[in-house]
């Protein structure tokens, strides 16, 4: 017998977690589509988003929304520095090295945060902790916020890429770097802003998801692995793929946690990743464009 209430709760949880995964994965997939760089440090921006929001929200006492906005802005600033130090030197010489350089940067950021805040899990409080009674289920306001901002963010990003001039420039660069450079697009600027946009989304995810559980320095590691799973699932360099992949992974994990065991739910995610890579390496919606 399947308990309908439990099923609905698990589906809602899966959807919400899936939106978090999607936000993280879109950044990964954009950076891969445009720079051909697999950013291993991407999860650290998720983590930084949460920690900076913690500093401004809990330590300095600013309201959650303002602290979150500051966090997202600061993380984008950090991403400029990150791009400058650990991606740009390799873009012309040896792009394969970015695999290692972003990995090194990830270790630097993660351990730096652990040095500063130690390894006791921290709490980020949110004013949106009250439960809200929807017709079929009860969710905390924070979860509804994730749902709203996530969907809104994805739609805005889609419109931005589709209709604005910068968006068109980004898509052109993703399709063909040399041709874009020839028609006068400043590729380096596109790189920088793609990174900023991608890490900004990761930071949004960090600020939104952190209040659901704890903050710890290695939280980005788990998230970037999830991001990889989603990106591979949806097809590298495909934004619609990242959305679909995020939902699939979120729902699968929620079902696994509800009906199998939460200890093994991550194993299922990684198994999906490996199966997809082996049997459909282009992903569910894989196309070589963004």
């Amino acid at each position, binding site marked *: 017998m399947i308990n309908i209430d439990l099923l609905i709760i698990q589906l809602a949880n899966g959807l919400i977690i899936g939106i978090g995964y999607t936000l993280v994965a879109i950044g990964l997939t954009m950076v891969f589509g445009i720079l051909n760089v697999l950013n291993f440090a991407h999860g650290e921006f998720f983590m930084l988003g949460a920690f900076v929001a913690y500093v401004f929200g809990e330590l300095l006492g600013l309201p959650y929304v303002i602290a979150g906005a500051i966090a997202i802005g600061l993380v984008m600033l950090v991403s400029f520095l990150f791009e400058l130090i650990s991606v740009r030197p390799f873009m012309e010489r040896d792009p394969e090295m970015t*695999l*290692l*350089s972003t990995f*090194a940067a990830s*270790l630097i950021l993660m351990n730096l945060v652990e*040095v500063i805040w130690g390894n006791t899990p921290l709490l980020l409080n949110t004013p949106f902790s009250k439960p809200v009674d929807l017709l079929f289920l009860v969710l905390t306001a924070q979860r509804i916020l994730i749902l709203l901002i996530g969907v809104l963010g994805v739609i805005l990003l889609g419109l931005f890429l589709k209709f604005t001039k910068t968006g068109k420039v980004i898509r052109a660069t993703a399709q063909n770097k040399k041709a874009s450079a020839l028609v006068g697009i400043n590729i380096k600027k596109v790189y920088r802003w793609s990174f900023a946009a991608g890490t900004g989304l990761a930071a949004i995810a960090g600020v939104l998801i952190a209040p659901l559980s704890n903050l710890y320095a290695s939280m980005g590691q788990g998230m970037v692995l999830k991001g990889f799973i989603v990106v591979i699932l949806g097809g590298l360099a495909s934004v619609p793929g990242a959305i679909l992949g995020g939902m699939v992974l979120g729902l699968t994990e929620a079902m696994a946690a509800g009906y199998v065991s939460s200890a093994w739910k991550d*194993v299922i995610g990684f198994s999906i*990743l*490996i199966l997809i*890579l082996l049997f459909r390496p282009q992903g569910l919606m894989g196309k070589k464009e963004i």
Partner: protein
Amino acid sequence: MPTGETKHRGRWILLILALLLPMIFQDPYLWHILVIFEIYCLLALSLNIIVGYIGEVSLGHAAFFGLGAYASAILSKNVGLPVLLSIPAAVIFSGILGLFIGYLALRLKGPYFAITTLAFAEIIRLIVTNWVDLTRGPLGFTQIPPLVLSFPGWFEFKVIHELHYYYFVLVLVGLVFSLIYNLIHSPTGRTFLAIREQEPLARSIGISPFRHKVLAFVISTMVAGLAGAAYAHFFRIISPDVNMVYYSAIPLMMVMVGGRGTILGPFLGALLFAVLPELFRTAGTIRMVFFASFLLACIVYMPEGIAVKIQAILKDRVAKKSPAQLGSA
């Protein structure tokens, strides 16, 4: 290219140094570091086969290190196998897992290969952490039996002392080194290099890149398993930590900083990462910040690694003469 004679002389000097060093400095602390250095040597030699000779970046080496450690620990403690047998058994287990993972993952290249190895390593780590009945989970596996050298009825010798263990692992390092050295200089090894340098060309003359890559991968994972087993019976306590990203990251740094695809590189890298943590011991977590910054600086300024840099300085010529490099690799 140094002549054969000078190369051999260099090797003898190193061997004598390795034999005498712990005798000269009678210090248990130093012996301890030396054993860690040896284990790191095994790890670096192992990963160097994948990174240096296949030309792929594996981010999941901890899986094989951890499997070797757990397999040997469980076989010797729960099954009661003598450690001299449980270590080779662990090596074989690692090789089987390596065959499985390599067979699947080596169809992919570059970032896809890296992610797949990372995902497999995470699966292994989760299994080790969650299969509490067998591995005792996060509590760790304790009281691992020590290595015992025995000849029934004649003698029995427990290798617990750091100095004795040092010589035991030295033998392993020597064996692995000569195995890899001879492999690289055999026709098979030349084939590895041909595939790394020019895969389409190698394919055109009838070489199967996939089969050679799997072979290299399996050899590498067996050595990683050996390193893990050596680790388990030295510390005699292991936890799922041996499967953490740290043990995938450290060998990668050793190989990249030391010099991938060179003979000397892994040893230099291992030396660096065995000694540096001790210098920064009081620094705690910030060690890792230093290491990673160091790695980043190395790949920016010395993308070929220290070994190649030293070679270039010694020979006073440009490091980018790849034929010479290939010959000495």
